[in-house]
């Protein structure tokens, strides 16, 4: 391979990597702008520290949403992405990001609930979207704990994987329902449409990967 060809192929890999990073940055930036640009009425009626807590809680929710989506994308083990970033590197990222998702979800839950009071939790059929969030949070915790303490829990790989995969996909469905119905920001046409398009795209992407086995087998 001559020097210019080497340079151009390196440039292509770097270019794709940069493009992906740019996409992630745009997604994250756009997501974090939602609670500011499409301010919820719940924020109108919060003043002082309560307003800061709620806003921070919404941001943590948006961050969790993006990290959860990335987690599912990385888990598909698409050859193209693995070739760009390296399989081991992506697996390490997947493990770290799992913990990060649990942490940001916990921060979201605490900060969103604190302004209304911890003895005033949204429980009951009237609060179905929030209850779906609670189920989602539980599922995230189970997924993360079972993955990081697999040997402690004496889970063999096959059993763990059998549980881990459906939990991951179910979490994606639940987060969509939670955000779609709980957040006033997503009643506005633009964020609502984008949410639908992104989730439909994600469902299609994972569906195609699973069916055609374009992706590699699961990490061991």
């Amino acid at each position, binding site marked *: 391979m001559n020097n210019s060809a080497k340079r151009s192929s390196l440039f292509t890999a770097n270019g794709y990597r940069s493009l992906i990073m740019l996409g992630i940055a745009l997604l994250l930036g756009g997501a974090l702008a939602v609670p500011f640009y499409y301010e919820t009425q719940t924020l109108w009626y919060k003043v002082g520290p309560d307003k800061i807590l709620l806003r921070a809680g919404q941001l943590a929710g948006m961050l969790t949403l993006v990290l959860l989506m990335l987690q599912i994308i990385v888990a598909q083990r698409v050859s193209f992405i693995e070739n760009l970033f390296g399989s081991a590197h992506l697996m390490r990222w997947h493990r770290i990001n799992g913990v990060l998702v649990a942490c940001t979800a916990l921060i979201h839950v605490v900060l969103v609930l604190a302004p209304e009071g911890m*003895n005033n939790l*949204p429980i009951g059929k009237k609060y179905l979207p929030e209850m779906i969030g609670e189920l989602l949070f539980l599922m995230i915790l189970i997924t993360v704990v079972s993955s990081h303490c697999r040997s402690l829990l004496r889970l063999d790989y096959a059993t763990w994987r059998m549980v881990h995969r459906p939990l991951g996909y179910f979490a994606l469905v639940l987060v969509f329902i939670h955000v779609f119905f709980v957040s006033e920001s997503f009643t506005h046409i633009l964020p609502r449409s984008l949410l639908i398009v992104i989730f439909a795209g994600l469902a299609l992407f994972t569906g195609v990967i699973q069916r055609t086995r374009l992706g590699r087998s699961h990490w061991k």
Partner: protein
Amino acid sequence: MKKLYFFGISFLLFVVIGQNAYAAAREWELDQAHSNIYFSVGHIYSKIQGHFNEFSAKVSFDPANLKESHFFVKIKVDSIDTGISKRDKHLLSADFFESGKHPLITFESKTITDAGKGVYEVAGRLNIKGKEYDLTLPLTFAGVKDHPAVPGKQVAGFNGTITVDRIVLNVGDEKFYKMGLVGKDVEVLVTFEALAVK
């Protein structure tokens, strides 16, 4: 003998009159499906209405025996319903009712007086957010009649409206009032039917 006779008659009269005076007023069972506690409060220019879904009431009422008539109402604060669940959660927070600490509102009548034209002044103690207040609710007694749908039972109806100052009752401080968002005067409509065996 005459003395004994007189003593016997007096004793009988005492027992009969005494019993009448202390006879409990007629007890009524609340018809939950046709009873409501509504409220309405100003928001900038509009009125927001809501109600409490869960409450109970012990009603002893006889217009001919107001002394023994009595009302005791218990409201579950977290059953508040304004049609928007997030607004309800906010109303239950420390900004307003603080239902985690104060889950019940109660009202117990102390005296009932006939104000004429079917209106009865029900004076009693309102317990809200752990503090008691004197409150007089003008209750219109709609009447008693055989229940059109329940044979063997009679139905009584009561309706009353009162305006209370939520800030005086400590249901929220002046924060949202001073911002011009949420009014301080809350109109409350108590409307209920109660049944009793004929």
